[in-house]
């Protein structure tokens, strides 16, 4: 309490310096948190990807051929070979990789733009969609190549004028009639794996669409029972890959699979861009860039704040001299100064954090243009932002900033000779 009073008095006496300190801290934390939040969106769980912590993604296939190398997506058959009989997996879903652009509508009316993902029936088990009306399609629907669809609420409204569209006929790609089986709550394009506005059973075409026998447009999402099962699952996949390789070699001696260690957990997914490269390459590069950005965003304001703390302390040299003369230890002096400063840093940090949350919430469309390309609008729901980890990061950065900006001045102030300090002549 005495510290709070002291800070308040200090602020009253030096309003400009107080504001500059507060604003400088807020600005630094604001920018750092924007970087953190943009990064977090790739990993934090939200519906329908609430189980991100238990996801393993199998994306690509890379093969040595008789005259070079070839890489791309997996064919349905390859994906099935890799991801069958996995111990420790709760469910495995095979689906197309990213929604394809199409049109949806009713005959004689303008067609709406839609993003179509073809999936198996396990998809609805791996991803937790919220059904407003109807149900997902079943394994029997997928097997029989049934023309049924699950659509998003906003598409249902756009095409039918009501979210209750179950049983209605929707024309996809102008001419192909589908019966609406279910309507789900809209999905943010930030849910990179599950995003679409129309989900249909994995068609025979998609299953038979292969090139070079092994490649196609299929991707796998494995839902583990627990994160501790990842190793068991990977072992099973490695066993399956070995079987696959033997079969490939039997067909053509020169061909072989080049393994990049898939499937990958959610945190690596953003780096699994290139089919002929391990995501580790992109991850380490991105980590280096992020570290450099954090360092600059922390270091520069810390230098500023530090020189301001130092100036502020210089005005209080006599007070410190008196405290030292009356037996206050150096350690206690340092602790007091750092704590006092921490309160200001935390206040600035809170302003920075709040403004960053508001900024991400309001300007999501501008910040996530990469996801926007998929279509729709990027709505960032509050629950996606209000994560304990976000507050944890903000607090950590505040501590770091505080330690960097007040540690050295506090240490110097504590080392002052009390006699000089009382005389106002610190050396």
């Amino acid at each position: 309490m005495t510290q709070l009073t002291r800070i308040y008095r200090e602020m009253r006496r030096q309003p400009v310096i107080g504001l500059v300190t507060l604003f400088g801290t807020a600005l630094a934390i604001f920018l750092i948190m924007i970087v953190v939040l943009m990064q977090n969106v790739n990993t934090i769980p939200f519906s329908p990807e609430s189980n991100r912590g238990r996801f393993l993604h199998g994306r690509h296939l890379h093969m040595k051929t008789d005259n070079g190398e070839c890489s791309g997506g997996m064919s349905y058959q390859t994906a099935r070979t890799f991801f069958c009989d996995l111990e420790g997996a709760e469910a495995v879903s095979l689906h197309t990789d990213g929604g394809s652009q199409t049109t949806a509508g009713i005959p004689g009316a303008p067609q709406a733009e839609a993003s179509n993902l073809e999936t198996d029936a396990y998809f609805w088990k791996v991803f937790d969609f919220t059904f407003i009306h109807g149900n997902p399609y079943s394994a029997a629907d997928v097997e029989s190549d049934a023309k049924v669809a699950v659509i998003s609420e906003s598409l249902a409204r756009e095409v039918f004028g009501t979210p209750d569209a179950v049983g209605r006929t929707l024309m996809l790609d102008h001419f192909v009639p589908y019966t609406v089986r279910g309507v789900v709550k809209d999905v943010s394009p930030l849910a990179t794996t599950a995003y679409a506005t129309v989900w249909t059973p994995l068609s025979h075409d998609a299953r038979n669409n292969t090139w070079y026998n092994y490649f196609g447009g299929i991707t796998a999402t494995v839902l583990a029972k627990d994160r501790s099962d990842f190793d068991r699952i990977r072992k099973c996949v490695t066993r399956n890959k070995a079987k696959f390789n033997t079969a490939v070699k039997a067909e053509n001696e020169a061909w072989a699979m080049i393994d990049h260690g898939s499937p990958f957990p959610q945190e690596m997914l953003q780096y699994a861009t290139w089919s002929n490269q391990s995501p580790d390459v992109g991850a380490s590069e991105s980590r280096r860039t992020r570290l450099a950005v954090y360092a600059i965003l922390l270091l520069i304001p810390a230098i500023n704040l530090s020189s301001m703390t130092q100036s502020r302390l210089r005005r209080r040299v006599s007070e410190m001299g008196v405290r030292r003369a009356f037996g206050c230890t150096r350690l206690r002096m340092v602790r007091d100064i750092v704590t006092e400063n921490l309160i200001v840093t935390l206040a600035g940090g809170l302003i920075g954090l709040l403004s960053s949350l508001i900024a991400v919430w309001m300007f999501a469309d501008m910040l996530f243009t990469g996801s926007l390309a998929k279509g729709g609008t990027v709505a960032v729901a509050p629950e996606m932002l209000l994560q304990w980890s976000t507050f944890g990061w903000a607090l950590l950065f505040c501590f770091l900033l505080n330690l960097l900006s007040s540690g050295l001045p506090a240490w110097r102030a504590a080392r002052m000779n009390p006699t000089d300090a009382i005389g106002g002549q610190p050396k």
Partner: protein
Amino acid sequence: MKRKLLKQIGHEWRSNLWLAFELLVISIVLWYIADFLSVQIITLNEPMGRHTENCYLISYDRVQPGSDGFNPADSTRETYIDNWTQFIDRLRSYPDIEELAQCNHLGVPYRQSSWNVSLTGTDGTDTIYLVNPSVMYVTPDYIRMFRITGPRGESTEQLAKILESGSAIISGNTLKITKFTNEAVLEAVRNRDTADPYEHVGKRFICPAITETDSITIGAIMLPTKRIEYEHPGQNILIRLDPLDFSNGQECIVRVKADRVDGFEERILADSEDRLRVGNFFISDVMSLMSIRNISQADYRDKMVNHWVVMLFLLASIFLGLLGTFWFRTQQRVSEIAIRKVNGASSAMIMRRLIGEGLLLLVIVTPLAIAGDWLLCHFELNTPIDWYGTPVSPLRFLLLAAIVFATISLMIILGIWLPATRAMRIDPATALKDE
């Protein structure tokens, strides 16, 4: 004056050291950002090589068996070609459409795919290789529609005629080597061994990736094209596309009459199911090349915006840092300023002195900062200006350093201005009351 200033800076060396360190770090980071932005701006200003305004990509599809309106009689090879020809003709005569061209997937502007090949030929005695041009199969109308021209003033029409005759057109920046090894390619890249591209004109080349049976004659040289605005121009080769051959893919691009652009997408999509439907062919989507551009370039634009934001943040930091530090400094020097005033110093002189102190700090760290910038370039950590890794020119290097110096100076002046103005309002009599 300078000596006095230096002495004063030395007197407060501790806080000045911090400020100097901050200025040094910011100078180097700002140089890096300025270099990145300058490369982006230079690249953005390089010509696209293709004029894409009012152009749209028409995606088509065929009605599939099992769909409403599927006509089995239209699925034979003959009807397929007939329907395709009619489909293209109907599009060509659609009232909104001015021009129409066909190309393969790689011919669509703003798409970032590429298919690079090498051509082998002879140069009298030696075998020569033209390395890495990206293949675009296009109809002659493609050259007309995108107004592609040659480096020696060859007109669009001349180039279109040459392509029509069956010859290929290659961009003037295609590299030539005489020995096909990785080292030779790297060497050629480093030295930009394009030689005189016109010496290839009229020569025959082999490229099994394009045609296993025939040779390819280079008929003309064209200006290189860029895939997207943020990239440097690539090397290209244009090969004539048979408008009825689907083996290399068939994309259809149209240019819409300038006065018909408004509402074009809605109008043509509304006609897609009847007026523009031929057999099983129909228009499945229409997308302006500008939309394709915006999607393809989103990441690049974001990166550029991020650099601007970091730059503004750093400038704001310098401003705040100097504002805070000098606020204190002037407060501590109240009596000093008052004595100066009593001795006849004008406000302007005091202002100059205070600002001079900040600027002198910057002048002191600038050589170090330039050394840091040079190290960035030396270790190739700066942004490359082209595909060839050409080092930054001394002129651009110094110009950027000068811009950074000027920008930071401006921030220093602004940051010190406020506290200095306040300090000058001191009434010497009040300030020196205690003395």
